[in-house]
């Protein structure tokens, strides 16, 4: 099968959906010339640096029959739009009794590794999980990216597409033919029997690498990729943990009230799964600090395959 990058998979999905539905439009502080050329500057709009207003405008356009895709670019910039996200987008369908649809996609890159320091290296997706009314995808492969992005654009609700900066150049199989993937369905990226690693985005690959190393030590690791964080596929995660009896969660975000905390909680609160737990749950996350600039510091802060492998060994005792 042909291989394309994670970034290309996102772009392909976007372009195909722009072709498919004339009601789609793209708002971003930076309008990609190729998109403007194909779809014109009415549908592909370079906006002023006013992500707050632009996000609100997307809500209004969605409520008026369009399907806007807002590219916030780095998640950093979503915070100037937070009122529109928290107080409007995530509540507007509900608050008005379901009378109108708000088909919206917000795109944002997350994660570190770029030596861009605290503001530009964040992974704050759990802040958005706590809102009801917003779906959240965070794919780890080009295949998942394309399939989920298409579903996000077709969804009649606000969907945030978080995209891992570290994976932009990562290549993988993506079929030529059209497909979509359901939002809310986790994917078992590797089967195993001794421990479940629930890993998010870039850490899926680190977990798979750790699993290879651990296999040589006789440890059989199952790697589960939630793929979407809201809805979060508790059932697939719990089923895996019931099988392996152990859970490690790997996330590029800090642990505190993170997606990792939610995954731990939904495992520990399920009676059947709890009954199968043979060891404490372990979180291998970023340290709970703003991300520092200097490479030695940044490397120290983030989790990676080695820290995951060490974590697995600790859980297995």
């Amino acid at each position: 099968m042909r291989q394309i990058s994670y970034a290309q998979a996102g772009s392909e999905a976007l372009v195909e959906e722009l072709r498919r539905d004339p009601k789609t439009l793209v708002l971003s502080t930076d309008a990609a010339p190729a998109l403007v050329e194909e779809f014109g500057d009415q549908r592909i709009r370079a906006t002023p640096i006013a992500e707050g207003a632009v996000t609100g405008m997307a809500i209004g356009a969605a409520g008026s029959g369009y399907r806007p895709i807002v590219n916030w670019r780095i998640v950093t910039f979503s915070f100037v739009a937070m009122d529109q996200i928290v107080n409007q987008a995530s509540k507007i369908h509900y608050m008005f009794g379901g009378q109108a649809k708000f088909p919206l996609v917000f795109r944002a890159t997350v994660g570190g590794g770029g030596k861009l320091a605290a503001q530009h290296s964040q992974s704050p997706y759990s802040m958005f999980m706590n809102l009801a009314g917003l779906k959240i995808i965070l794919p780890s492969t080009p295949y998942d990216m394309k399939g989920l992005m298409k579903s996000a654009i077709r969804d009649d609700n606000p969907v945030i597409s978080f995209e891992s900066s570290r994976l932009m150049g990562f290549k993988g199989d993506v079929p030529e033919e059209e497909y979509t993937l359901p939002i809310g369905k986790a994917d078992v990226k590797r089967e195993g029997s001794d421990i479940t690693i629930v890993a998010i985005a870039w850490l899926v690959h680190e977990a798979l690498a750790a699993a290879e190393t651990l296999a040589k030590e006789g440890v059989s690791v199952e790697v589960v990729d939630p793929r979407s964080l809201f809805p979060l596929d508790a059932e697939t995660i719990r089923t895996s943990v019931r099988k392996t009896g152990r859970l490690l969660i790997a996330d590029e975000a800090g642990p505190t009230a993170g997606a990792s905390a939610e995954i731990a909680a939904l495992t520990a609160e399920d009676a059947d799964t709890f009954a199968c737990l043979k060891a404490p749950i372990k979180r291998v996350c970023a340290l709970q600090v703003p991300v520092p600039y200097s490479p030695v510091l940044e490397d120290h802060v983030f989790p990676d395959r080695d820290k995951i492998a060490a974590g697995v060994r600790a859980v297995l005792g």
Partner: protein
Amino acid sequence: MQPIIIVRLRDKAEQAVHHIVGKSGHHLGNMRMQPSPNNQIEMLRQMQTIRRFEERASDDFHAGDIYGVVHCYIGEEAVAVGVCSALERDDRITSTHRGHGHCIAKGADLNRMMAELYGRETGYCKGKGGSMHIADFSIGMLGANGIVAGGIPIVTGAGLAAQLDGNGGVAVSFFGDGASNAGPFHESINIAAKWKLPMLYICENNLHSANTPASKTLALEDVAARAAGYGIPGVIVDGNDVMAVHDAATIAVARARAGEGPTLIECKTYRQSGHTERLEAYEHRTSEEIDLWKKKDPITQFANNLIQREGQLSEADWKQMDDEILQAIQASVDFAKASPFPKPESALDDIFAQ
């Protein structure tokens, strides 16, 4: 570019003429725009409907039948009605926390409004929204909003949609003097001006934001002066004169439909009621100021005008109109009271569109 003031005067034949003057006083032109007598009577009816709706909402709030918070628009009815009477049904608006007036002026159903305030299943939002969140997308009312300035970007997006639709639709943002100091005001107007979106930005300058006078928050007294920074017209109008508001809106709507972009219209008005119907910690406005503005009540003025000057209405007509309105309001309360509360489990519905 200086703000333009529209002053409504009478010519010798006692006909209303608008004099358009620059803020520094020089005369820019005259204008004579009169909606038909029928329309004017309809406008009066709407204003009085808003007034009676809110008087009742206030009573029923105090009686404990309406929950949470209610913000009354009493004294500002000329703005919503003056503007919405210049719009078509398909034109879109957003409103504020003080939203009943805009809903009614845009044509919302009183029964469903009152039922929403009563928290009933038959309300506009099935009881999920209450006073601060009434919307009716079918008439282009895209929602009241509990966030000051929160609706400005949203309706600017409706303006973008109207531009893309290409059918000559316009979108109207209602917001307060307080909101004009918030970032979304600036960001939205700049974008609308740059993209020439078919928009009206209607600032309801009622001289106060909650418990803070505008004199403490607006760097310049006139919000309309800000239009100069975006190269769009900034208009000041007597917000208690419904015809003046109507005419200013009519010009701006024509401009918007013609693809010439947004207009900022500042309506100088006053809220006769408290900030909310709850017991506020304090009222900082003097009773002299409140009384002064009560004398300039927009409904009394307009009704007197139609009766005395225009001769379009008799005292008896006016009385009868008010009776009809009171009946309609009573009917809306009856409707609300007869409607069931939503089922508790329905709290889990409508999180996502299917």
